[in-house]
């Protein structure tokens, strides 16, 4: 059951490349903690999920999109340099002169132009799969291409494949500014995805990823500088843990999405992963299931991305649904009640609020680890922050002329605010 990744824009292509690397490295990890024969089965399933193995070198099941050549060239070379996997040739769409951080340019100008070619590439990828499980979009919210072209392509793919599952992984920028118009771009993307396109949106916020990096310095020394590579590595570690197969029949993406995101107003997901040891401490890290899962629950309740140094929760973080994946020694017997200890939305019966997937194989060199993907109020901080800032700009009519020049109207903005406020309202009143 294969997942096809569509990576769009600089961030999307960096994340996509890192994701395939993380997955590949984990597939070929020597520290699995399970029998060789079981491991072979797992490796086959996992490889097939993400790579096409027809040739001598596994090729990522990916379509790469950007509005300038440089980023994609870098991604393709980075993959080649590993010597172990690569991106298939002919699956890259590069046209145009950049989106200039303008969502409207990405959505209204570049997106439509790219659609047909990208759909063709997707069709080509699908044909290489025995069974295509769904599409994973890797995009960002802040820029012009990932956000604008991403939103447009998501919608187009949904139109062409009404029964396919589309999950969008979107990176939210630092609250304190990477791009001056980031809150507009983010708002417009979230509104567009809500209207139609993605079945679920997994949000990874740079602030959260940075918090994880800042407390897990490599080598164990003092505070080390954090780069985008570091942020991407954290995001992909979590995402891979959630997407890799669990033993037995791997659940399909559509099962996962049905369980997690049943309703149009509730499609935003967040990830929490534990433990997070430093590279130096990794070989010595061993946490039993109960403390590990309790820690994860506390992280969730405190909306903390990192696994230590956060304040205990004051209020509750209510969930619509959660998916817990436990990987490592004794996963089959891990008592997961510890994680299920929070209220869900009214309509989900108690036993079904937290789904659990189990995999005995160790992940990422960790004896025991777990990732919690939840559809909950945890996203409110990021989404409200975006909406608040975007509104302040809009109320002063700032930057509007740039979007209007590409065909967006003030009404489109108002409608987008309405859509996102609706989502905020829904989550707040869980």
């Amino acid at each position, binding site marked *: 059951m294969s997942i096809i990744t569509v990576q769009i824009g*600089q961030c999307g292509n*960096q994340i996509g490349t890192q994701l395939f690397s993380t997955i590949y490295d984990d597939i070929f990890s020597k520290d699995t903690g399970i029998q060789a024969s079981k491991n072979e089965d797992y490796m086959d399933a996992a490889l097939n999920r993400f790579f096409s193995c027809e040739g001598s070198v596994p090729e990522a099941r990916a379509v790469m999109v950007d*509005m*300038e*050549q*440089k*980023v994609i060239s*870098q991604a393709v070379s980075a993959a080649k340099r590993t010597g172990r996997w690569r991106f298939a040739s002919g699956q890259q769409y590069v*046209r*145009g*002169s*950049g989106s*200039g*951080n*303008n969502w409207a340019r990405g959505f209204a100008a570049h997106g439509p132009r790219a659609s047909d070619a990208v759909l063709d590439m997707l069709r080509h990828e699908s044909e290489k799969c025995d069974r295509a499980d769904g599409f994973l979009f890797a995009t960002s919210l802040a820029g*012009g291409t990932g956000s604008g072209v991403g939103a447009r392509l998501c919608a187009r793919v949904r139109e062409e494949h009404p029964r396919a599952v589309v999950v969008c992984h979107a990176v939210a920028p*630092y*609250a*304190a*500014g*990477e*791009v*001056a*118009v980031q*809150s507009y771009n983010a708002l417009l993307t979230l509104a567009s995805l809500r209207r139609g396109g993605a079945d679920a949106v997994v949000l990874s916020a740079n602030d959260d990823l*940075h918090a994880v990096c*800042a407390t897990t310095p490599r080598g164990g020394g003092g505070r080390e*500088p*954090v*780069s*985008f*590579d570091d*942020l991407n590595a954290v995001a992909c570690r979590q995402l891979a843990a959630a997407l890799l197969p669990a033993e037995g029949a791997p659940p399909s993406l559509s099962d996962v999405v049905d369980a997690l995101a049943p309703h149009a107003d509730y499609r935003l997901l967040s990830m929490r992963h534990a433990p997070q040891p430093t590279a130096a401490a990794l070989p010595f890290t061993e946490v039993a299931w109960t403390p590990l899962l309790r820690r994860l629950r506390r992280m969730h309740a405190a909306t903390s991305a990192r696994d230590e140094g956060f304040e205990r929760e004051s209020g509750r973080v209510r969930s619509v649904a959660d998916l817990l994946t436990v990987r490592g020694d004794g996963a089959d017997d891990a008592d997961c009640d510890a994680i299920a200890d929070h209220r869900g939305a009214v309509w989900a019966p108690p036993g079904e609020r937290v789904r659990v997937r189990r995999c005995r194989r160790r992940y990422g060199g960790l004896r025991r680890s777990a990732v919690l993907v939840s559809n909950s109020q945890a996203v409110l901080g990021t989404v409200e922050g975006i*909406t*608040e*800032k975007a*509104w*302040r*700009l809009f*109320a*002063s*009519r*700032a*930057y509007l*002329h*740039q979007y209007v*020049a590409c065909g967006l109207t003030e009404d489109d903005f*108002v409608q987008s*605010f*309405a859509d996102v*406020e*609706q989502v905020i*309202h829904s989550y707040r009143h869980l």
Partner: protein
Amino acid sequence: MSQSILIQIGQCGNQIGCRFWDLALREHAANNKAVLVDMEEGVVNAALKGPLGDVFDHKQFITDVSGSGNNWAVGNRFYGRRYREAIVESVRREAEMCDALQCFFVLHSMGGGTGSGVGTAILGMLRDEFPDVYNRFVTAVFPSADDDVITSPYNSILALKQLTEVAECVLPIENQALQDICTRISKFSSQSKAGIHTSAAKIKEGSAVSDSHQGAGKCSVQKAFDSMNNIVANLLLNLTCSARFEGSLNVDLNEISMNLVPFPRLHYLVSSMAPLYSLTDVNIPQRRLDSMFGDAFSPAHQLIRADPKHGLYLACALMVRGKAQLSDVRRNIERIKSSLRFVHWNQEGWKTGLCAVPPTGQPYSLLTLANNTCIEKTFTDLVVRFNRLYKRKAHLHHYLTVDGMEVAEFDDSLQSVQSLIAEYKDLQTTRQSIFIPRLQVAASDYSMQYT
């Protein structure tokens, strides 16, 4: 690859432009889409004789012989009309060789006749003939108060109106600021040579932003201009580094225009660069990264004399090159934020770019571009100088005898600049008086109320 076309006009524009190509070729096999325009042959011919002669071909040059006599009207009306077709042809030829033309980059001075007059005429041509290339990015050198050319205020104000109406984004550069920077660098250099500094700190060969590697046999005035041109050339290199080199966060000229221009007419950016030079002494540690940020926000590093700390920031871009990491940049934004006043609706109005490759001779560098209301002072000073002449109608007849030039042009231009100044001043005094609450979702159904 997304590409820009550099159009350099007049003596100043061509000197800086040629210096830029010279440096760019050293850094990287440059992709040389350019059009060079001058109404005198001196500079362009000199360029052709040098190493740049191999890089450009004759179809990229448009020249005449007699010059514009420091008269904007002659440049804009007379030569602008005469050479319109030739210039458009030349640009079109360059454009056809681009896979994806992203923007036009125009380089000229404001105080003379050709750069100022023909330069602004070209902006109009670009808008009319290439409407899809929406970004016209201008680097404009403004005259100092003691400029040799008496009519420079006329030329500058007439050109400024065009820049406000036709350009997307402008980097004003002041000769005075460039001179001050050069003085600072050479003072440091001579002091260390004279042993005034107790350390053996010397400026590393070739690392100063004012270094020109030519200069043998040139007179001191020319050498001074060389140093100043070099600074601007380095600015241009840093501005466009994402196009040539890899980085974890690419920024191109279109993104700069997008993020730094919240209102269409208010598109003038204060630029500043650090470091100005590197030291050779291995015993003195390189000024740390954090100091570089502090320096870049000090007036001594600006390419235009202005006081952004007393103005209001509308937005600010940080283009970092070299071994700086994302977290270094973020840490410094946090540090520096509190001493800067941002307009209330754009408190997080930062745009960041990271390019992995530093400039030659330095481990890292920072270019800041600030859209700040303090720029109105530059325009106000220019208006004062303009009025000193205009009140007496001094030299007006030189302009009015040019076919197509009328007094109304002077009045309109003056008014345009005055209203621009007023717009900046208005922003400076806006407080967040009216709070507009966000949209509310009605509790009972999903209808929206827009208050």
